[in-house]
């Protein structure tokens, strides 16, 4: 299932998808805040210069301008690093985009620790939480390049309101299949198991699959769910997993507060309470370093996931 031969950064898939979709849909416009080479919107800029708007280092203005495009019937994709897209322009997103429910696509790259050497100032670990709490805003974290392409198609066809797409800097293995559709509000079971469920998003899906392999050696059969759609959350699938496996572990390259783990815990607290262990960054800022080493240091490795599964199983036993 895991295609480890192919690997692609989700930002690269985004850049390519923009060019492809831009050729078909003339209503697409792209805005960037002086990071087009990094966010990969530069490809769209080269192909469709009349529909690309570099807004300079001015994220707040970029979001407002995107709102103006959307209010005029265009489908703007606004891109910059996740930390600036969500933090720097939060009130603009809240009041000029989410409140009026405008069809702006905020495609934010360089999310999470795997920004790497640029360090904490550039590592968004709170962006999912910030976006998820806004009414009308929907939040998607694709697991790989393939899924990014599908999310982009959905962003044009099915999603009518504002959408936050969280993308990464490093290459990630292809973990989703070519033929499975992406649907907002639907998670996907990538690997079945009956003892515990790991619900992951983004780069942590690949880590979760590796963890599941480790767990087999420990005699634990873990179900792995790719929950790219964080809002709306696939609540029914979450409840089904809670019922089937009795314990959950969430995995995200984000703070353990307010992200995927928060969403899953909120859902289950009201519908089917079972132990939920949240793997993520533990309420701290990141630092400079190679992405792989950062994931190790901050507890986001497959081994950390496997250990969390052990804790979840112990709790499950305790509450039996």
């Amino acid at each position, binding site marked *: 299932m895991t295609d480890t031969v192919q690997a692609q950064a989700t930002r690269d898939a985004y850049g390519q998808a923009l060019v492809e979709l831009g050729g078909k849909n003339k209503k697409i416009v792209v805005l960037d805040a002086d990071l087009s080479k990094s966010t990969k919107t530069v490809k769209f800029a080269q192909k469709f210069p009349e529909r690309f708007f570099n807004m300079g280092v001015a994220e707040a*203005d970029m979001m407002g301008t995107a709102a*103006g495009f959307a209010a005029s019937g265009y489908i703007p994709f606004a891109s910059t690093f996740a930390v600036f897209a969500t933090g720097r322009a939060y009130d603009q997103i809240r009041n000029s985009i989410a409140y009026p429910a405008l069809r702006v696509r905020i495609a934010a790259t360089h999310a999470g620790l795997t920004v790497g050497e640029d360090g904490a100032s550039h590592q968004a670990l709170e962006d999912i939480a910030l976006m998820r709490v806004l009414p009308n805003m929907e939040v998607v974290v694709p697991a790989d390049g393939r899924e990014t392409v599908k999310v982009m198609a959905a962003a044009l066809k099915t999603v009518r309101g504002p959408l936050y797409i969280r993308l990464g800097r490093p290459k990630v293995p292809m973990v989703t299949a070519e033929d499975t559709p992406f649907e907002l509000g639907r998670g996907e079971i990538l690997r079945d198991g009956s003892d515990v469920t790991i619900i992951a998003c983004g780069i942590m899906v690949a880590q979760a699959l590796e963890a599941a392999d480790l767990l087999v050696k420990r005699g634990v059969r873990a179900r792995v769910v790719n929950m790219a759609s964080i809002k709306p959350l696939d609540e029914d699938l979450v409840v089904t997993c809670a019922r089937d496996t009795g314990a959950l572990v969430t995995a995200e390259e984000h703070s353990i507060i307010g992200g995927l783990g928060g969403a899953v815990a909120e859902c289950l607290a009201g519908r089917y309470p079972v132990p939920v262990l949240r793997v993520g960054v533990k309420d701290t800022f990141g630092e400079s370093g190679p992405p792989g080493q950062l994931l190790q240091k901050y507890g986001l490795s497959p081994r950390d996931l496997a250990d969390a599964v052990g804790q979840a199983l112990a709790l499950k036993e305790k509450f039996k």
Partner: protein
Amino acid sequence: MPNIAELKEVALSLRRDIIKMTCAAGSGHPGGSLSVADILVVLFFREMRINPDMPGAPDRDRFVLSKGHAAPALYAVLAARGFFRRKLLDTLRTLGSPLQGHPDMRKLPGVEISTGSLGQGLSVANGMALAARLSKSRTRVYTVLGDGEMQEGQVWEAAMTAAHYRLDNLTAFVDNNGLQIDGTTDQVMGVEPIGDKWRSFGWHVLEVDGHDLEAIAGALDEAREVRGKPVMIVAHTVKGKGVCFMEGQADWHGSAPSPQERDEALKELEGKKEGQ
């Protein structure tokens, strides 16, 4: 097109509506609504190509009230122009009313974008102007900023954008009434020299008496002829204009008149009508 005398009548009736609405609501922003009333009358009754029967017509001109707290003035002018029943004005700020404390585009026809958090309207207006250009539409975009609002950094980001993209289909006003919540703009955070600031940002700047309907109309005529630059019309206004006890008083930024004050204000606004 209504003549200036007729526009004056409309402006007076707008002012009466603003007083009645904010009094009925028991809250709201009469001062800055009264200062911007004349600008809105000229825009909505003379300048803009809009059709209340087709509020979503693709090629319509667009208006963005960046100083969203002047919502009572916007609502009054939209009602006067026929976008909705005048009776709705009585519901300002009440539960379930489409007349929210600050404009909500999803609740009220004629509101092109929800505003209220200051500093954001010019960016949105820029987006609309860029979109109009891309669509080869003859849409023109208008926006009004407050003078205190210019303290928001985003305004200057947007000022750069409009000039960089040579948005000559965009005309902005500053409702320069010199007052903000905590006092005069000079005391709180100086914004002068306003005209020079915008000129240095690459805008074509005009200055008018913001209560002289003919002058406002003339400035808009001139703005339409400017090529390659956005136009900023610095409108010198008086906060609370038309109601003597409100004029020039910062305290009337965000407090509503009592029924007694309302009656006093209405008497004055009626009086001016008779005096013409």
